[in-house]
């Protein structure tokens, strides 16, 4: 009983702290660029009809709160993934092997998000976060020269073909 009360009491302060941390970390990395990203994400997460796996139906405050909670968590993961990669590259000194590892990480997040079942929060967070990570990495890779460009495009092409084969193959039977 005490643990349940503690969980309920800690939930919102922790979520607020989490979103605050995401803002501060994003500001630290990209400065003013974080603002339009946050606005766009809030419009998608809270303005649209995306339920993120919460209970169906509208009007009930509990469902609204649940939806908001899920949106906050998805938003945080989606923005923290590219930040993690940014720090990883900074620590490693922007070298090619780490970039390729980060590329695998980004594509891995997208693929995991596409195939995960029964957890829409993770699905949306991974797809958005992975996509942001990949876009960021391609910008970084372009500055490393022609070999890096070939590796990056080949890798992207292979992943896109594999996903298409697995996910969108027409069933003849």
């Amino acid at each position, binding site marked *: 009983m005490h643990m349940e009360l503690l969980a309920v*009491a800690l939930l919102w*302060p922790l979520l607020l702290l989490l979103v605050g941390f995401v803002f*501060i970390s994003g500001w630290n990395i990209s400065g003013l660029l974080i603002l339009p990203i946050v606005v766009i994400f809030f419009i998608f997460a809270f303005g649209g009809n995306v339920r993120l796996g919460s209970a169906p139906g509208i009007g009930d405050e509990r469902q609204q709160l*649940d939806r908001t*909670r899920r949106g906050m968590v998805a938003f945080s993961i989606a923005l*923290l993934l590219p*930040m993690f990669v940014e720090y990883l590259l*900074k620590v490693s000194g922007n070298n090619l092997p780490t970039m390729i590892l980060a590329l695998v990480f980004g594509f891995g997040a997208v693929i995991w998000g596409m195939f995960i079942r*029964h957890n829409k929060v*993770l699905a949306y967070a991974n797809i958005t976060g992975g996509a942001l990570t990949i876009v960021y990495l391609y910008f970084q890779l372009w500055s490393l020269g022609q070999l890096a460009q070939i590796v990056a495009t080949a890798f992207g092409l292979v992943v896109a073909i594999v996903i298409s084969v697995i996910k969108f193959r027409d069933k003849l039977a």
Partner: protein
Amino acid sequence: MKNNLAKILFGIVIFLFSVALAYFTANYLSTTGAFDYWGTLALFACAYAVVGIGIVMIFPISLGFLFSADVLILHLLINYYGEWADVLKLITVGAVILILYIACAEWLKDVEEAPVSPISNTPIS
């Protein structure tokens, strides 16, 4: 309903007073040179977090103190986060992502939709 409104009101009052107390004390101590401004805020944040968790049975006090601790921690982060080493930032962000993944897998699974009951075709007599 009235009781809930009173709880929220008292929570907000406790939040405002606790934040004000922390900042006034930090200002006073730094002006007199007795203690560092940011150190005082950090101590208040820790104390508020401990008190908030400790008296969880009384929701307005608990939430008031926990949100105050949030404000103080975020203010400290705004001031000091840029000075952290990149490795520390990497570890922090990685740990937060890991915790979020665990939380998602444990508590944020999709809520199953209730099965729709078949519509009866029998005429209402």
